[in-house]
């Protein structure tokens, strides 16, 4: 058995495979088939300051090897999370990352401050890339200035590792990554969903009330892989790679592209035990190829 442990942005992970935010609930939903502590890290559903109902209308639409979603960050709000959910999560003994979103800088900072006093949190994932909400979200993710300002403020308000989650919906993702690095981020996670849409040809209108939605799943893997390959070479920050990982071969591609850890999103819906078989597959690959540690293959595909 190879050594699967990685240190991601100061967070020790027992293996490099995390769950992607919004696709694994708060970790309990899949407990019938996999315990959160089997994961390298559990990244919880995106949280906001106040509870959010999320978007109206259709929220899901399957596309070719992909999924469009327009959940709109439905969540119980940070206080409810801290009081009702986090205590149970602590019992699971999982490495827990808290994904946070806000409508403006102050909201992000306020959420961060609320989390500062909590036990059982390994780090923060700052979502600046949600395409499904009107304010905040993607507005930050496409602007290096705004990103720099926001990340600096979050950085200054906590001692937790700060991971910033990037959007692929930009001309040059490395610019945003560099802004995060300058602002003191400890790591990056990428990619969030790709902006897309669908039309109902019977109703002759967009499937989603918001028109645009976020594309995830195997369809976007080539896009995500390129982003990880570029960003991991452009900055000195560790990267959690995600976007379309479907089997262990995909996970290996991301690690060879420079990712320190990977996250599984949409695949959980199709294969709820994917994390297990991907962890096993990475292990087998390392043995087969004669590597002692997963750290030894990171970035091997760099040119």
């Amino acid at each position, binding site marked *: 058995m190879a050594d699967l442990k990685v240190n991601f942005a100061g967070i020790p992970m027992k293996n490099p495979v995390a769950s992607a935010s*919004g*696709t*694994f*609930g708060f970790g309990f*939903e*899949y407990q*019938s*088939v996999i315990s959160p502590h089997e994961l390298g890290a559990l990244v919880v*559903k995106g949280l906001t300051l106040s509870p959010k*109902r*999320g978007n*109206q209308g*259709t*929220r*899901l*639409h*399957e596309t*070719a*090897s*992909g*999924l469009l*979603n327009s*959940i709109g960050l*439905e969540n119980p709000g940070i206080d409810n999370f801290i009081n009702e959910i986090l205590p149970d999560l602590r019992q699971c003994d999982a490495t827990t990352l808290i994904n946070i979103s806000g409508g403006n800088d102050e909201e992000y900072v306020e959420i961060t401050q609320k989390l500062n006093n909590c036990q059982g949190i390994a780090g923060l994932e700052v979502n600046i890339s949600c395409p499904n909400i009107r304010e905040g979200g993607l507005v930050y993710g496409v602007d290096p200035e705004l990103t720099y300002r926001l990340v600096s403020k979050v950085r200054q308000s906590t001692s937790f590792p700060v991971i910033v989650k990037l959007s692929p919906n930009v001309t040059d993702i490395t610019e945003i990554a560099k802004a995060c690095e300058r602002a003191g981020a400890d790591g990056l996670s990428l990619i969030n969903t790709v902006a897309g849409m669908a039309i109902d040809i019977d109703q002759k209108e967009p499937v989603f009330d918001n028109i645009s939605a976020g594309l995830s*799943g*195997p*369809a976007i893997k080539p896009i995500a892989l390129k982003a990880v390959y570029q960003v991991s070479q452009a900055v000195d920050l560790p990267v959690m790679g995600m976007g379309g990982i*479907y*089997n262990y071969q995909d996970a290996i591609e991301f690690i060879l592209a420079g990712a320190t850890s990977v996250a599984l999103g*949409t*695949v*959980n*819906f*199709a*294969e*709820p*035990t*994917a994390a297990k*078989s991907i962890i096993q*597959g990475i292990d087998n690959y390392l043995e087969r190829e004669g590597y002692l540690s997963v750290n030894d293959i990171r970035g091997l595909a760099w040119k």
Partner: protein
Amino acid sequence: MWYDELGKISYHTKIAPQIFLMKIKLPKISTSIHPGQFVNIQVNGAYDQKEDSFATIISDPLLRRPISVYDVCPQEGELSIMYQVVGRGTQILSSQAEGTRLKVMGPLGNGFSLDEGQKVALVSGGIGIAPLYLLSKKLASNNCQPHLLAGFSGEEQVRLLQDFHELNNMNIKLATDDGSAGYHGQVTDLLKNFLSSYQEQIDMVVTCGPEIMMKKVVDLATRANLPVKLSVERKMACGVGACLGCTCESVDNQSYKHACIDGPVFWGNEVKLNG
């Protein structure tokens, strides 16, 4: 508690235009599933010979398809589903041969959970009859003499009632849109008539079918002071409460319900129906 089980199709047949009955060997799920619950089926799995595992080598269609349990035979470790071909997922499913292996998650969701001895009128529209068979079977075997009012588009769908006719103690009434069998008209008209004579003799209405139909059923039952249980369909990704995609607006307008974990069976006054 649910399982992700690798099943094997043991029987597959077309019973009406676009409607199929499939039996799948699923020892774990079939012994733990209840009426009204559902399974989430990968319609297009493929065995990865190189890795010797049932693995992820085809990614389209990506999502599983939610289908209610139609019947179970726990001794055989077998579960059956009755489904209608409406899009590509169900089309692919319909082309799977006996012997094919399929990954199935279940049991999922909250089923009907009726008390023993309850007197129930079941009202179905089209393929909405599927989730009602296992319930009818239980009710009939408890000697509850359930009433079934079934609506279909035409007589070619009447074969969906075959299994129901074989149950003892079932009272079956039938309506077709085109009048080719039974009452000529909507099943909700049947219900109206039924309630005017039998209202006192039943405790509850259970319904499944198009939302516009279920809405009428809720109206009629509410006017007759009868509680309603209904089973809704929503697009689903995970089936287990993780993606938050399968929302139903709650009647109190406070928050969304999620069909996969709060339902698919709801009280008639819990969720807003479209139509």
